[in-house]
């Protein structure tokens, strides 16, 4: 449901300002949403540096945005209770030029609007748009869109919906606030002609015989085998063996051979843009516990040859033959390949080997805490409301110890949800660290284990520690003081755990069974504890807008263009300066303090300028191509003619 008029499209990167009225958590969530755009699309953002157009994020009442680039700088509000990743993504998608899904021209084919159930004075919230104004970008109606409203929006009666799906199964889906849907991304990428994303370098589910351009390493003893899911216990991770004749993985058989036998699997050559990457994959070592999986990086040696090997991490076998998740931080700035080395251990024989699947390489930091909980369905069955399990202790990059508390069957108020909470743990660095620990953002994410990272819709919640969060029943003791002072001892970690701070409705049991949250019956939770102190003062003053200089190559022509009189005269003679529209060539009229001002349309080749958009101009690069092409043709003709002349002589 995107605006057709290309005038409202952004040029990337989009300049942004984070207003200092924003909550610290909101600032962190906005930056997290930017990273999702960079990971899944070509949309990019940069701090404002005096550009004529920008988005200024501020904390006003509620969550709202304008639709499309207004070309003048615009505000976007992330108010109280709006600081969720999916809500920020929703508002930014408005700014990118998208309306709500349920206002599509053809929406009545897919949803029913219950007009009698809408709050008085709010029916305008359910208007639909003419397809002259908006385009569906040739995509079907998307119940899963993050731009769709939920069934109970603007309802009179708390239990009666105002909007329902014609296919009832989607009543639980519309209004999802997990993340972008695949269709949201398809549309965004179509609208902005995206061909790649900023931070996704590589991913492979090994579903196709080309294995994503990976190659068997030179000089090794054996090869990795591209294998299909077969018997029970030999399922892939992508499809978990659910699909006949599909679901493949890479396998190094360590059953026979000699100790130290090696098989290398190398990625194609990759070109990083940032300095840090995260290699993320699933693996299992199903043979001997003495087998190893080693991750290497083969870098450019300075001459352009990619042959400088650096060992990064080793995964040792154990007796656990389940799929495990792995994250490996790479720090590469030159072209490189990542390498999986299977290493046979010192054993006589075994039935099994090393398996890898669903590999992803992003230019983002790896999560600092990854908690994998096996047999989650059984845990759900055997738990009761209020019972909890604690994660192991993790450490943040600064050295603070922390953990996650999971209430599988939630609390008495919400027994159909999992409650997930964050707490601090005492740790080995406590004496060196500053307490209470304030201005840190705790982010908890339940991983949707979809093999394509762009299709993952993982719910995420966050809060920021501050001095207002006080221990109950104390005289102002901070919850974020040293856990050895304010926490309780837990023998499972041999540490003190603080009170937890979390979300009773983090994820419903119904949602857990959808998507890929419980693949292999494993629940995976990521957690971060990041210092946001550097975001306390981010506001920069807006500079006087400079006139846009894009493509102004025919300025002389614009000045000499025939005009039909100054717009000011038009404005002063009319009641509404924009009625009738004085702008030509599909220009949009904007009433600026009672005077008409034209916002001219633009296309791929031409754009319009002039007070009334009366002058068609050609973009500089197009003109360059035309001039270059013409000059080249003339030169070619001269050469051919001279050659023909010589040969005839």
């Amino acid at each position, binding site marked *: 449901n995107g605006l057709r008029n290309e005038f409202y499209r952004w040029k990337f990167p989009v300049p942004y300002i984070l207003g200092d009225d924003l909550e610290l958590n909101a600032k962190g969530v906005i930056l997290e949403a930017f990273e999702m755009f960079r990971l899944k699309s070509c949309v990019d953002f940069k701090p404002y540096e005096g550009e004529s157009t920008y988005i200024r994020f501020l904390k006003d009442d509620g*969550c709202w945005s304008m639709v499309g680039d207004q070309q003048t700088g615009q505000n976007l509000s992330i108010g109280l209770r709006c600081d969720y990743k999916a809500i920020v993504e929703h508002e930014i998608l408005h700014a990118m030029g998208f309306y709500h899904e349920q206002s599509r021209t053809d929406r009545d084919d897919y949803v029913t609007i219950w007009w009698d159930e809408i709050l008085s004075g709010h029916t305008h919230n359910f208007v639909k748009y003419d397809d002259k104004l908006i385009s569906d970008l040739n995509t079907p109606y998307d119940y899963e869109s993050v731009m769709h409203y939920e069934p109970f929006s603007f309802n009179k009666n708390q239990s009666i919906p105002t909007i329902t799906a014609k296919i009832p199964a989607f009543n639980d889906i519309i209004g999802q606030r997990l993340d972008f849907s695949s269709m949201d991304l398809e549309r965004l990428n179509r609208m902005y002609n995206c061909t790649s994303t900023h931070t996704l370098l590589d991913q492979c589910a090994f579903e196709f015989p080309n294995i994503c351009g990976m190659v068997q390493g030179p000089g090794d003893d054996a090869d990795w085998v591209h294998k299909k899911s077969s018997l029970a216990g030999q399922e892939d991770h992508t499809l978990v063996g659910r699909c006949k004749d599909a679901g493949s993985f890479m396998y190094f058989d360590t059953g026979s051979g000699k100790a130290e036998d090696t098989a290398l699997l190398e990625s194609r050559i990759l070109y990083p843009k940032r300095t840090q990457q995260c290699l993320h994959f699933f693996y299992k070592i199903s043979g001997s516990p003495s087998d190893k999986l080693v991750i290497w990086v083969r870098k450019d040696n300075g001459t352009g040859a990619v042959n400088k090997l650096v060992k990064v991490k080793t995964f040792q076998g154990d007796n656990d033959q389940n799929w495990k998740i792995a994250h490996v931080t790479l720090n590469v700035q030159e072209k490189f390949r990542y390498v999986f080395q299977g290493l046979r251990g010192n054993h006589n024989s075994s039935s099994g080997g090393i398996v890898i699947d669903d590999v992803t390489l992003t230019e983002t930091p790896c999560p600092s805490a990854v908690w994998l909980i096996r047999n989650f369905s059984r845990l759900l069955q055997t738990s009761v409301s209020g*019972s909890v399990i604690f994660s192991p202790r993790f450490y943040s990059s600064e050295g603070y110890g922390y953990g996650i508390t999971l209430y599988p069957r939630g609390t008495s108020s919400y027994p159909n949800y999992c409650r997930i909470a964050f707490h601090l743990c005492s740790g080995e660095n406590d004496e060196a660290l500053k307490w209470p620990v304030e201005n840190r953002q705790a982010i908890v994410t339940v991983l949707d284990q979809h093999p394509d990272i762009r299709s993952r819709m993982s719910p995420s919640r966050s809060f920021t520690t501050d001095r207002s969060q006080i221990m109950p029943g104390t005289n102002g003791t901070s919850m974020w003081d040293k856990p050895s002072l304010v926490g309780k001892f837990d023998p499972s970690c041999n540490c003190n755990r603080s009170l937890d701070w*979390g*979300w009773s409705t983090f994820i419903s049991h119904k949602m857990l069974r959808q998507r890929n949250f419980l693949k292999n019956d494993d629940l995976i939770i990521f957690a971060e504890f990041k210092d946001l102190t550097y975001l306390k003062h981010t506001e920069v003053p807006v500079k006087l807008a400079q006139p846009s200089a894009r493509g102004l190559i025919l300025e002389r022509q614009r000045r000499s263009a025939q005009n039909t009189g100054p717009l000011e005269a038009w404005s002063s003679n009319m009641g509404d300066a924009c009625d009738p529209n004085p702008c030509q060539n599909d220009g949009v009229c904007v009433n600026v303090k009672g005077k008409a001002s034209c916002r001219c349309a633009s296309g791929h080749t031409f754009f319009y300028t002039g007070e009334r958009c009366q002058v068609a101009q050609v973009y500089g690069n197009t003109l360059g191509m035309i001039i270059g092409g013409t000059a080249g043709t003339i030169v070619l003709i001269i050469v051919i003619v001279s050659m023909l002349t010589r040969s005839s002589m």
Partner: protein
Amino acid sequence: FSVRHLPKEDARDADAGELREDIPGINLAAGLNLFQGDILLPNER
């Protein structure tokens, strides 16, 4: 894992223990009546 029980007062909620409100609910509670719930129109519209 060992499954345990915690005293109720040991658990505090970042969102006041409520279901996450969606955008229309947040904006209605804030007294806003924007176009389509959360769209700010340019002044002339």
